[in-house]
């Protein structure tokens, strides 16, 4: 971080203070982002995003084409069609809706379309549950989407706008999902600062500018859009002679996305005075920590508030909030956690048959570190089971016990936090 902090272009005084909940904040961000097409199907707790945005459409506040679709599968399909002709497209869903659109998720990223989606993380059935956990997010972790997890309403607004810039970056061209916890953020009103419309428009560089591609039958590069004047074939069959190469392009783009996410985070800081760690991870108290808790989403705030109190009592503990789940910032995580003695990774979803997804990403990042920390996995918060400050306190005590022992047996690697045994 630079010692000389230049004043942001739009300091707080030039921003507008509103009181909105997470869903409304996302709708407001979409309103300002010059989105051409929104196609969405309602599902609790995302419904407010779509309702609020339709109000903007009805009032003539946006130029957006709002497509009423009959399912989430259709919603993403419509976004794919729209993006394929050069539109800036947005949708939103979660849980069963996300599960329904899963084949189209892979298609969106395979076609390298910079669609943005807000996912109000909600548990997958069965049993039916409308509350928050990350099981729906985890089902899309190999889909080739960039996945960013936000902690509060302000970050939901900021990140939704940033998502378009990241997705549309010429070196990325991948769809981006912004994950905000259902109810805990979607329905939670918090203080929010928004930029004036012109600031957002300028930040995004106006409407979407599609990238160019070179095909054998045109002499010059043409825009990567379906255009009868410059015809291209999108969505083709690719046999075992080319499928692999096309997939590798996606993987390499995802690698480049790490740098772009950090750059956009810095650009946002220059614009607003706000940034989220380095854009990929947001550490607190890690520098001198003996114990570290790794967590994503709104619970990170709860964990941090308890960790702050523990640090005041002299306990050397820190919290590492992961913001970019995909691409997973392996290097940064290894750098930050290498000197910690005991790491607890909190997964808000179960992966029956193996350990938590976030846990697996963290330990694999640490694999090449010679003197690795002990890493344990906590499954917590399923189906909206609250992570209270009391529970975090209990967690910290348990970890301190483990640290004293200096060793965790294999059968204790995974624990549950907050379940009735």
């Amino acid at each position, binding site marked *: 971080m630079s010692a000389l902090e230049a004043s942001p272009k739009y300091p707080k005084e030039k921003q507008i*203070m509103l*009181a909105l*909940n997470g869903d409304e904040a996302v709708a407001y961000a979409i309103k300002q982002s010059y989105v051409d097409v929104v196609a969405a199907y309602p599902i*609790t707790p995302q419904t407010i995003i779509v309702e609020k945005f339709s109000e903007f459409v009805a009032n003539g506040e946006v130029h957006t084409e709002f497509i009423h679709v009959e399912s989430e599968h259709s919603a993403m399909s419509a976004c794919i069609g729209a993006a394929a002709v050069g539109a800036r497209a947005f949708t939103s869903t979660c849980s069963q809706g996300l599960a329904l659109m899963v084949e189209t998720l892979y298609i969106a990223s395979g076609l390298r379309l910079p669609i943005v989606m807000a996912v109000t993380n909600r548990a997958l059935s069965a049993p039916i549950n*409308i509350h928050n956990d990350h099981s729906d997010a985890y089902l899309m972790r190999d889909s080739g989407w960039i996945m960013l997890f936000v902690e*509060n309403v302000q970050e939901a607004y900021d990140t939704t706008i940033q998502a378009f810039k990241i997705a549309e970056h010429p070196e990325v061209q991948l769809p981006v999902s912004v994950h905000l*916890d259902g*109810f*805990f*953020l979607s*329905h*939670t*009103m*918090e*203080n929010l600062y928004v930029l004036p419309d012109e600031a957002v428009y300028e930040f995004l560089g106006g409407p979407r500018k599609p990238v160019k591609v070179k095909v054998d039958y045109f002499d010059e590069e043409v825009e990567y859009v379906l255009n009868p004047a410059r015809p291209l074939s999108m969505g083709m069959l690719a046999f075992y002679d080319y499928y692999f190469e096309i997939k590798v392009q996606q993987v390499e783009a995802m690698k480049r996305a790490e740098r772009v996410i950090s750059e956009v985070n810095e650009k946002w800081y220059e614009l607003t005075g706000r940034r989220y760690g380095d854009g990929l991870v947001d550490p607190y108290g890690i520098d001198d920590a003996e114990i570290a808790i790794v967590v994503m989403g*709104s*619970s990170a*705030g*709860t964990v*941090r*508030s308890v960790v702050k109190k523990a640090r005041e009592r002299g306990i050397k503990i820190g919290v590492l909030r992961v913001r970019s789940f995909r691409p997973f910032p392996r290097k940064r995580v290894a750098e930050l956690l290498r000197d910690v003695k005991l790491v607890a990774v909190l997964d808000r979803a179960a992966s029956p048959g193996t350990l938590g997804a976030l846990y697996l990403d963290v330990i694999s990042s640490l694999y090449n570190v010679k003197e690795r920390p002990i890493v344990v996995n906590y499954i917590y918060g399923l189906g909206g089971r*609250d*992570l*209270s*400050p*009391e529970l975090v306190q209990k967690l910290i005590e348990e970890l301190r016990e483990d640290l004293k022992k200096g060793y965790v047996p294999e059968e204790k690697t995974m624990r549950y936090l907050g379940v009735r045994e």
Partner: protein
Amino acid sequence: MIEIRWHGRGGQGVWTASNIVALAAIYGGKYAQSFPAFGPERSGAPVLSFTRISDEPIEIHGMIYEPDIVIVLDYTLLSPKIIEGLKPGGVIITNYTGDVNAVLEKLGIKRGDFRVLLVPASKLALEILKTRTTNTAMIGGLLRLKHVVRFEDVKKAVMDRFSGPIAEKNIILIERAMNETIEV
């Protein structure tokens, strides 16, 4: 930080009440947070909402287990369970029908255990709004505690969230409720 837990039934405006108080706090220069917790999503099912107000940014996300204030919109919800976690020295603000001792009995407490404020919300709502929606009247009761939010800010919040004549009626209702709330 002040933590308020609201209790009501679906359709009574529990969430809106929490939002208005949070908005008023924000107008008053504070940090605030407001969100609901639903049971089954239908009218009549118990609904909770939560308000946090603080001078510092609020990092916690999740439900309130040790509220400073418990507000009950629906008399039929009163029970010892409803004040679970209420901090010592905490305040109970409830809608009531006129029988003070019945309220204490339903809550399972004695005079002096907690501060108890009784708001004739149903009566006033019926009189001024011609409905049984008690949420705004209960905000009037909350205003009796001067330290949570200011009446001026609540007025602004109501004007922001409701339109024209409805906003005005609600403001009258809030003021009446504030003045007619009694303390046990």
